[in-house]
């Protein structure tokens, strides 16, 4: 499926994500790493469970707000089969915890603070994702 290049909303949306990371850092001293926050919130409750759940609820509310204001942003194409959704979800969940970060924690916060581990992790997950899409779309499905 073809999607249009949307430079303006991509930049603006990206800036909002950066602002979210800046706020969580400067207000609470925390890295806005989604997989770390969700993985910890889904485990035994502790003193940090409250803000973690609030952050996660905020993501849903923010997305809901924008898709109500701009219905075009809510048009998503999620065509993967249930088996693929389960396999992909398991890999993303396990992998981000093992590697201690995802697109937000390593890709945005890690790069923003110049962490060598995050730069390496970001190169690895982008490279594997690029290769995966190439194989799925052009080798297997081609």
């Amino acid at each position, binding site marked *: *499926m073809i*999607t249009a290049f949307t430079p303006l909303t991509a930049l603006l949306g990206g800036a909002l994500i950066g602002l979210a990371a800046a706020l969580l850092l400067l207000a609470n001293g925390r890295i806005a790493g989604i997989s770390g926050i969700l993985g910890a919130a889904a485990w035994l409750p502790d003193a940090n469970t409250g*803000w973690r759940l609030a952050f996660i609820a905020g993501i849903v509310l923010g997305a809901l707000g924008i898709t109500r204001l701009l219905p075009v942003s809510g048009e998503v194409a999620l065509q993967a089969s249930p088996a693929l959704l389960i396999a992909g*979800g*398991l890999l993303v969940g396990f992998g981000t915890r093992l590697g201690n970060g995802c697109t937000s924690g390593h890709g945005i916060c890690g790069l923003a603070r110049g962490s060598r581990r995050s730069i390496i992790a970001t190169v690895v997950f982008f490279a594997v994702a690029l290769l995966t899409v190439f194989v799925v779309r052009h080798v297997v499905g081609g």
Partner: protein
Amino acid sequence: MAVRIVAALLSGVLFGAGLALSGMMNPAKVLNFLDLAGTWDPSLALVMGGALAVATPAFALARRARHPLFAMRFELPSPADPDPRLLGGAALFGLGWGLVGICPGPAIALLSSGLPAAFLFFAAMLAGMLLYRPFAPAG
């Protein structure tokens, strides 16, 4: 602390709004960014660029500040060398991300769509996170 919960909620709202506005909630857009040889959509690069343009000065500011506004100290990972866990985890994540086009932030934001497929992916991702627990380093 109530103020930290409010700050986190506001940060989450901005994050979710940014994901939706940028189109990154749409797995088709993410997969097309990753499809250099096919229907390439460069939007994701600008999302990363926009986010880094704002987050990088914030981290520079944090290095100069003594402590965050509402907490005693900054909780940042201490520098360490890359290890097999980092590389293996990033590779497994990249594989799952490339198969479906959803990473953890959009997985949460997509719950707002109400689509059954979004809930299935989220549940599987949560299960993957819990399956990791026995392998977590002690402490």
